[in-house]
C-alpha cells in the first residue's frame, strides 16, 4: 500500500533557518533591513505562530492573548530589575509566567466554546488590562509603565561583577553581548526558528491532527474516546507561552512595559495577521506578520509632504486631490487601512493569502491539464 511520503523536517528547517537569518540581506532592496523592523518581524512572528496553534488548529477565537504579551513584558522587566540585565532569565521567566497565567485563563475560558469562549477571553482581557492599568500599580507602575532604573538591585549582576552604581541605565545583554542592533535581531531570530520548529512538530504530530479534528467536529471527538478539554487547554497554554515569549522579547528590545500592550484590541491585530496569511497553515501567520508589519512601517512613516513628493509626476490639481484622498489612510490613519484590510480579507479571502496562492496555482495547473487533455485528444 502506498502511504504518504514523509516530508523531511530537516530540509524544511534548513531552508527556514537560511531564509530567516539572511533576512538582513534579501530585505535590503525593500528597504526593510534595519534591525528594529527585523526584530519586530521576528517577535510578532513568534506571537502569530503561537496564536495559530490555538485559533488555526482548534478554531477557538481568543481575544485574550494580549494578556500574555503583557505578562511576558512585565515579568521580563522585573527580571531586569531584580536579577540581571541578561536576557536569558528574562525570557525564561516571561514565558513560564505567561504559561501559568494562560493555564489559569484557559482552564476557565475553555469550559465554554464558540462565542461564549470568545466573550470569556474578552472579559479576562479587560480584567487584566484594568488590573495592570490601575489596581496592581505597585507591580506595573500603572499608567507610566514599568521601567528599569539605575538603582535597581539586579542581584545576579552584582554577584558576578562590580556594577557601577552611577552612570546611565544599563542595557540588555546576553553574556556581555549587547542586545541592540543586529545581535538583538539574531537572538530573536534564533528563538523564532525554535518557535517555528515546535509549530512544525505540532502540525505533523498526532497531537496536531487531534486539534484539527476538534475544530472539525468536537462532538465526534468526544464519542471517539477523546477528552477534548486537556487538548484545548494544552494548545491554549502553548500559544500563551509563545505570546509570553514575544512579550518578553519586546521588553528585551526596549526594557519598558506598559498596560496598553494588554488592550484586547491588540489581540485583534494578531488575529488579523493570522487570517491574512492563512489561518491554520504552517507558514501563513508568518506571511501575515511580514505583510502587516512591512506595510505598517511604510504607511505610518508617510506624511502629506512625502505624499506630495510621491504624486509629483501628476499635474498640481490632481496631485492635491490624490493627497487629500490618500492622506486619511497613512501616518496616523494607518489603523484605518488596517481595519479596511481586516474587512476585505474576512469578506473576500477568509483563507488568507495562502489560499489565494493556492487558488491561482490550481487555476494554472488545471489549465495545463486541460491543455494536455486537448493535445492528447487531437
Amino acid at each position, binding site marked *: 500500500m502506498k502511504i504518504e511520503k514523509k516530508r523531511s523536517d530537516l530540509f524544511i528547517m534548513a531552508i527556514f533557518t537560511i531564509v530567516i537569518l539572511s533576512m538582513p540581506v534579501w530585505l535590503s532592496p525593500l528597504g526593510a533591513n534595519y534591525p528594529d523592523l527585523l526584530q519586530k518581524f521576528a517577535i510578532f512572528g513568534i506571537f502569530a505562530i503561537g496564536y495559530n496553534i490555538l485559533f488555526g488548529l482548534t*478554531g477557538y*477565537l481568543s481575544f485574550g492573548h494580549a494578556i500574555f504579551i503583557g505578562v511576558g513584558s512585565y515579568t521580563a522587566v522585573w527580571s531586569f530589575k531584580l536579577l540581571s540585565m541578561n536576557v536569558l532569565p528574562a525570557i525564561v521567566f516571561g514565558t513560564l509566567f505567561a504559561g501559568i497565567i494562560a493555564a489559569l485563563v484557559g482552564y*476557565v475560558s475553555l*469550559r*465554554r*466554546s*464558540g*462565542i*461564549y469562549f*470568545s*466573550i*470569556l477571553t*474578552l*472579559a*479576562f*482581557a*479587560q*480584567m487584566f488590562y*484594568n*488590573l495592570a*492599568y*490601575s*489596581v*496592581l500599580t505597585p507591580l506595573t507602575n500603572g499608567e507610566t509603565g514599568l521601567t528599569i532604573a539605575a538603582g535597581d538591585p539586579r542581584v545576579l549582576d552584582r554577584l558576578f561583577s562590580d556594577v557601577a552604581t552611577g552612570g546611565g541605565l544599563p542595557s540588555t545583554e546576553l553574556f556581555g553581548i549587547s542586545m541592540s542592533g543586529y545581535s538583538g535581531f539574531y537572538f530573536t531570530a534564533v528563538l523564532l526558528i525554535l518557535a517555528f520548529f515546535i509549530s512544525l512538530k505540532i502540525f505533523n504530530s498526532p497531537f496536531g491532527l487531534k486539534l484539527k479534528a476538534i475544530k472539525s467536529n*468536537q462532538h465526534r471527538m468526544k464519542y471517539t474516546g477523546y477528552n477534548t478539554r486537556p487538548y484545548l487547554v494544552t494548545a491554549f497554554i502553548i500559544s500563551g507561552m509563545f505570546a509570553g515569549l514575544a512579550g518578553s522579547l519586546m521588553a528585551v528590545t526596549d526594557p519598558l512595559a506598559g498596560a496598553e500592550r494588554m488592550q*484586547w*484590541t491588540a489581540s*485583534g491585530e494578531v*488575529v*488579523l495577521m493570522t*487570517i491574512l496569511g492563512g489561518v491554520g497553515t504552517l507558514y501563513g501567520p508568518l506571511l501575515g506578520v511580514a505583510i502587516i508589519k512591512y506595510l505598517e512601517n511604510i504607511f505610518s512613516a508617510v506624511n502629506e509632504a512625502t505624499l506630495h513628493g510621491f504624486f509629483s509626476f501628476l499635474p498640481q490639481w490632481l496631485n492635491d486631490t490624490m493627497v487629500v484622498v490618500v492622506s*486619511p489612510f497613512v501616518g*496616523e*490613519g494607518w*489603523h*484605518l487601512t*488596517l*481595519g*479596511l*484590510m*481586516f*474587512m476585505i480579507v*474576512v*469578506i473576500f479571502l*477568509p483563507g488568507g493569502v495562502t489560499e489565494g496562492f493556492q487558488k491561482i496555482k490550481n487555476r494554472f495547473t488545471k489549465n495545463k491539464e486541460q491543455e494536455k487533455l486537448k493535445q492528447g485528444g487531437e
Partner: protein
Amino acid sequence: MDAVLIQLLNGLDKGAAYALIALGLTLVFGTLGVVNFAHGALFMLGAFCAVTFQKILTISVKVIDPSITFFTAYKEQAYLEIWFGDVGLTIIDYAVPLSILMAIPVMLLIGLAMERGLIRHFYKRTHAEQILVTFGLAIVIQEVIRHFFGANPIPMPAPDIVSSSAAVGTWLGLSDNLVYPWWRLIYLSFSLLVIGSVFAFLQLTTFGMVVRAGMFDRQMVGFLGINVQRKFTIVFGLASVVAGLAGVMYAPILPPDYHMGMDFLVLSFVVVVVGGMGSLPGAVAAGFLLGVLQSFASMTIVSQYLPGIDQVIIYLVAVIILLTRPRGLMGRKGVMED
C-alpha cells in the same frame, strides 16, 4: 445612607447605558443570529451625532464686537444668534436633546446601510467570521471619526436649565446636601422610556410578534413564508437607533471620543451574556444590575477592603455567571450553543 443612594443613582445611570446598548445587541443576536462587534461603534456614532448637530447649529461668522469700543474687535457669532437672537441662543443651548431629531433618521440609515451592505452577507458564515468582520468595521468607523473629529474628547454641555443638580435629598426627606445632576436623572428616565417603547413595540405590533417568534425559533418563521429578510433589516435599523440614542444622550455625561465605542462594547457583551443570550428582559436587567454593582464596588467602604474591585467586578461576575449558569440569568436553552 446618602452615599448609598448616590451610588444607586450612579449605578442605574451607567446601567441604563449598558442596558440600551445590550438591548440592541441581543436583539440582533436573537433575530439575525449575528454577533455584531460594531455595535459599540453605533453608540459612539450616536454621541457624535450630537457633536455634529451642535457644530451645525453653531456655524459662525466673524462680526464686530460692539462691547469693545476703543478699537475694532471681532468675535465669532453663530448665524442662529444673528438671525433669531435669543431664540437662536436657546436652540443652541438645547443642542443635545434636539440632536435626537437628527440622530434617529441618521442612525436608522446607518443601520440599514450596514445590514444591507455587510451584515446580510454574513448570516451563513461562522460566528468567528462575523466577529472578525464587524470588529474590522468597528475599527474603520472609529478611525474615520478620529480623522474628522480628532482624538480628544469633545465636551458637550447639557442645556443650561438642567446643568445644575436636583435636590434629590430634599424630595425624599433626607439630607438637603444630597443632590444629583439633573441631566443624569433625565438620562435615566429617557432610557426607561426608550426601553419601554422597544418592549411595547415588540409586544403590541404584528411586526414585533414576528420578531419575537423569530427569536424563539428562527427556522420556523422562515417556514411560515414571512419575508424575514426585510424584517431583519428593520430590526437591525431599530437596534442601531437604540444604540445611537443611548450615545446622543450620554454625550453630556461622558465627553465623546473616538474609542468610547470599543470601551462600551466589551461591557455590553458582558451584559448580554450575564443576562442570557437572546433574552431582551435579561439584557435590561443585567445592564442595570451590573451598573449598580460597579457603582457600589467603587464606594470607599468597599475599596477599603478590596482595593480596585470596582475595576474588575463586572468581569468577575461575568466569568462566574458564565461558568455556573451558562445560559445567563434569563437565557433560554440552545441559544448560540454549539
